[in-house]
């Protein structure tokens, strides 16, 4: 416990709040990598998930469903650290792009699977009513399936972003900037205060992300759907 109290002193250390190794700069770096990877993830996974969920009939749909769910399980089994190290070893280091690849790769499955499952689980009666009233395919997807599936979609996006923030921390080990630097550099210099400071910052960032998504849920999900999804 003492060590943690002691580490809090690190936050007041000289140059802690300015310069390239200052907290603001590291935080911005971390957010930049994370949000960039998150945006790419969402751009890839959301449309595919929505479409696969929407086109649910027939054998190809069943196969794609199986593939989507398997991808999520596989992503859970893949060790992030190993993937990051391998990517950096196999490519010329010093570039951010190779590191983005595993970040995105590991974040796509949760978004894909939850979006797909969310749309698929929409009551067929709703779809029938929507079509029966004369909605076109795109209208059914955007006006009915998407809003009803939104709680699960947001859950997938949240899982992905938290996963990315965590992986980006680990990526400091292979040379990425961001908050992970404090942990990795602290470890190699045997400075626990720096490690603890970095860890606290990462934890705060993850918890804040969680809170942002909780707010987003309240703001974006219709009360009619929220009420239904609430546990009893």
């Amino acid at each position, binding site marked *: 416990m003492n060590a943690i109290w002691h580490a809090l002193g690190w936050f007041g250390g000289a140059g802690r709040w300015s310069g390239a190794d200052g907290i603001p700069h590291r935080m911005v770096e971390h957010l930049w990598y994370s949000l960039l990877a998150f945006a790419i993830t969402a751009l890839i996974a959301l449309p595919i998930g929505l479409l696969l969920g929407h086109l649910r009939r027939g054998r190809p749909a069943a196969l794609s469903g199986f593939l989507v769910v398997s991808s999520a*399980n596989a992503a859970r089994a893949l060790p992030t*650290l190993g993937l990051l*190290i391998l990517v950096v070893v196999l490519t010329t280091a010093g570039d951010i792009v190779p590191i983005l690849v595993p970040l995105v790769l590991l974040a796509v499955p949760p978004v894909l699977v939850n979006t797909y499952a969310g749309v698929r689980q929409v009551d067929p009666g709703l779809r029938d009513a929507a079509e029966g009233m004369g909605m076109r395919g795109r209208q059914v997807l955007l006006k009915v399936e998407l809003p009803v599936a939104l709680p699960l979609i947001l859950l997938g996006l949240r899982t992905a972003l938290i996963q990315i923030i*965590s992986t980006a921390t680990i990526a400091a080990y292979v040379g990425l900037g961001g908050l992970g630097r404090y942990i990795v550099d602290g470890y190699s210099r045997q400075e626990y205060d720096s490690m603890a400071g970095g860890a606290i910052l990462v934890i705060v960032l993850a918890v804040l992300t969680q809170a942002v998504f909780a707010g987003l849920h309240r703001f974006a999900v219709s009360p009619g759907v929220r009420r239904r999804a609430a546990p009893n």
Partner: protein
Amino acid sequence: MIPAAIGTGGEPLLRWSYVRDNYDGPIWEALREHLVLSFTPVLLGLLIALPLGLACARWTRLYPPVLAVTSVLYAIPAIGLFVVFVAFTGLTYTTVVVPLALYTLSVLVPSVVDGLRSVPEHVRQSAVAMGFGPLRRLVQVELPIALPVVMGGLRVATVANISLVSVGALIGIGGLGQLMVTGMKWPGGAYPTPIVVAIVLIVVLALVADLVLMLVQRFLTPWERSGRVSRRAARAARTERAAEVAR
């Protein structure tokens, strides 16, 4: 037998000579450590999650705060928890085991509660009507029905733990993760073989553990196997899958 040649400087992804020379040395050591570090937290987490989940299902007012805590726990990156625990338990196995146990807990408690809630009210009522006492009802009726959902959570937590242990390598306690670090810091330039060996072993370990747990579940719940499934059971299975997917 396929040493691919896409490595840097012609270095293959996998050199069998490394595996041959090290399988009963560093590789075996790392694997043994990995097994201890990934399964101890699963057991610990399960031991705590069961009574906690039962309590949450019994006293429903308890559940929302517990759920809030577990969902925040779930969001915290493992590396963050590892580093914080160094302050309490130093550079020991405990420092990795306790955070992973907490992580397991955060997956399992909701599974236990959801599982118990999936017990149909009419089944519970008829058990009461037949004279089952609370404890007997729990052990003989409610827990078996909750089992598939609980096992679903256990599989997710186990697979996640197996892959997360390697992150511990950043503080020097990482099981197979140590091999990744070894490969990265190889004297005279990075050496892909130990990294690939570690990744492959982790993935295989995760798949085997998942398979074993699935077989255990099928053995423990023979009624889920029989061909004709009632509509309710099918629906419960779907929600179970959905919950599993949602992780």
